[in-house]
């Protein structure tokens, strides 16, 4: 009987992750093997593992499975002397340095009119302000006890904060950084979902707050009111969807010339190593649908919910940004410090994959556009966060400063970096 059992197990060796399971509870295995086989079909007595539930992966072997676990950031952030800056690479003529450290889970970046840099949290509860005083930089907590306050927008002295289920505001914030008061809620019509429930937020050229309402799943028919970008008036009184068919966007910006909205979108997990890719999308009309959950990358329908649909029904992405690369924050470069080729190009922070055995991303890329707003090329800009298939930092958002330098947030190491070009700051190589 033992031999027969081991034969059976061998025949299922390809289901490595699962055969480990079969092997462990001996009571179970023995009992299954003891069942008398029918004469007509003697083998196999062990059933192969049932097909996966929607949105869960096919069966790779146990060794492969180990490389597909999620990556959690440090809960406290790293001290400045342990930050990965010496290992980071920028193109010739650029320099990267620490702008601020000690900001655990540093996420979205926003600039106030008076030069304050605001930094948000996704996994923790705080919003920070970085201020410069007499040449010294200081980090202050301006809000705490918040529910995933990932989204930030700034308009005429007021900081807007998007939490999991509401948007609130802090007026005259830059004059009251030491005593900011309690945020006043202006809008709260959001479903409470942990899955993709955190928000990215930005101020549109129409002076409306734009916010992503993520699909609360890996892959599903998004419940009504989710899977969209929504715009909300500054008083919170009116709201409407502006883009549909979004899985989860954690970064968007408006083209400085055409004023069109561009956004990144994170593709579904557990389909394969190489598909789908994360997307860069360009919105040319109000209400456009970008395919989720039916069509990915504008080229193929979903294997679970795409039946009966065609990609022709949906908008196609402007560019593909790599499978599972977690393309998050993005900004058009409107500064003057960097060389002319970067003017109006898009910097995109790729947080880096977890749902891929060979990780990709963990960098800032730059996407160059043609005059007609089609994508011309994309290339790496800031790299080095990904070493030996593990992260020493993970970029989340980018921010163009008034002097044209570029800030980059890192939620893994808990820091903000600054990239500069030229002058006496040119790196000697």
């Amino acid at each position, binding site marked *: 009987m033992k031999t027969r059992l081991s034969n059976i197990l061998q025949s299922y060796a390809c289901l490595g*992750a*699962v055969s*480990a*399971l079969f092997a*462990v*509870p001996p*009571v*179970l295995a023995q*009992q*299954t093997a003891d069942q008398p086989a029918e004469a007509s079909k003697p083998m196999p007595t062990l059933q192969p*593992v*049932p097909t*996966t*539930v*929607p*949105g*869960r*992966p096919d069966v790779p072997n*146990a060794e492969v*499975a*180990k490389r*597909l*676990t*999620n990556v*959690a950031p440090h*809960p*406290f952030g790293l001290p400045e002397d342990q930050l990965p800056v010496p290992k980071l690479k920028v193109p010739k003529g650029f320099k990267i340095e620490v702008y601020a450290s000690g900001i655990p889970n540093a996420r979205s970046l926003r600039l106030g009119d008076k030069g304050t840099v605001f930094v948000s949290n996704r*996994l*923790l*509860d705080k919003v920070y302000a970085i201020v410069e005083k007499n040449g010294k930089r200081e980090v202050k907590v301006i*809000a*705490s*006890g*918040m*529910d995933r306050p990932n989204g930030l927008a700034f308009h005429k002295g007021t900081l807007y904060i998007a*939490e*999991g*289920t*509401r948007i609130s505001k802090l007026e005259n914030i830059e004059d009251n950084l030491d005593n900011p008061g*309690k*945020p006043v809620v202006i809008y*709260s019509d959001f479903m*409470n*979902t*942990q*899955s*993709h*429930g955190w928000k990215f937020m930005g101020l549109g050229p129409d002076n409306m707050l734009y916010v992503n309402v993520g699909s*609360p*799943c*890996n892959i*599903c028919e998004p419940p009504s009111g989710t899977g969209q970008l929504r715009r909300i008036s500054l008083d919170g009184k009116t709201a409407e969807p502006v883009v549909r068919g979004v899985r989860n966007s954690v970064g968007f910006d408006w083209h400085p010339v055409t004023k069109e909205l561009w956004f990144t979108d994170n593709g579904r997990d557990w389909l394969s190593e190489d598909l789908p890719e994360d997307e860069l999308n360009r919105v040319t009309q109000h209400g456009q649908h970008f395919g989720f959950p039916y069509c990915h990358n504008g080229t193929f329908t979903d294997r679970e919910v795409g039946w009966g649909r065609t990609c022709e029904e949906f908008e196609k992405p402007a560019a593909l940004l790599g499978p599972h690369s977690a393309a998050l924050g993005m900004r058009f470069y409107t500064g003057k410090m960097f060389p002319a080729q970067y003017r109006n190009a898009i910097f995109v922070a790729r947080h880096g994959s977890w749902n891929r055995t060979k990780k990709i991303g963990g960098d800032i890329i730059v996407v160059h556009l043609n005059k007609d707003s089609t994508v011309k090329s994309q290339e790496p800009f800031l790299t080095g966060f990904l070493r030996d298939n593990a992260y020493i930092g993970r970029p989340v958002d980018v921010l163009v400063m008034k002097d044209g330098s570029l800030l980059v947030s890192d939620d893994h190491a808990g820091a903000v970096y600054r990239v500069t070009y030229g002058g006496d700051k040119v790196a000697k190589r």
Partner: protein
Amino acid sequence: MTHARARTGRDPRFVFPRLARSVATCVLVALPALAAGADALETRLATCLACHGEKGQSATPEVPSLGGQPAFYLTVQLLMFRDRLRVVELMNKMMAGFSDGDLQNMAKFIAQLPPPQPAGGSLDSDRMERGQTLAAQNRCNFCHQADYSGGQNVPRLAGQREDYLVKTLREYKYETRRGYDASMADVLYSVSDEQLPDLAYFLARFR
């Protein structure tokens, strides 16, 4: 500044009178220790272990065994209690005022407690099989490892208290417990409520 967190409260099962009673009992036992020397880490740890079990195995209904949990996971949970990211009033009170270093030291100590023993008694092989199939279908063994010992921010499940597992799975599914990230809410989206007890049964008895 603290906001009351929005909770859907979609499922009435989250009121746990039994939990309240059992915790009240063990806290009464532990409270003198807490009052005697609130600042000493060892004293606080004694208080923790009065409910969670001195040898890593909890005998208190719906209170988890902590033995063999990864230090990173423990640190994060202690931090979430301290900063009220996870709202469990008793735990929030217990963790108030600790420094980041204290949390890490406590986590390091607790992580060295021996892993809990799997639940005993006679095995219902049908339930074991159903639970095992569910665990395989949903790929629990990817992040929690093939032996369900966990790692980094992913907790050990093998030998955990069955009642605590059922409670926790429901809390994640109905989004009344917040995770450090949203992984568990993602995974449980497609697992039905009726399946959760079998999953817990299997994991509590996994050896």
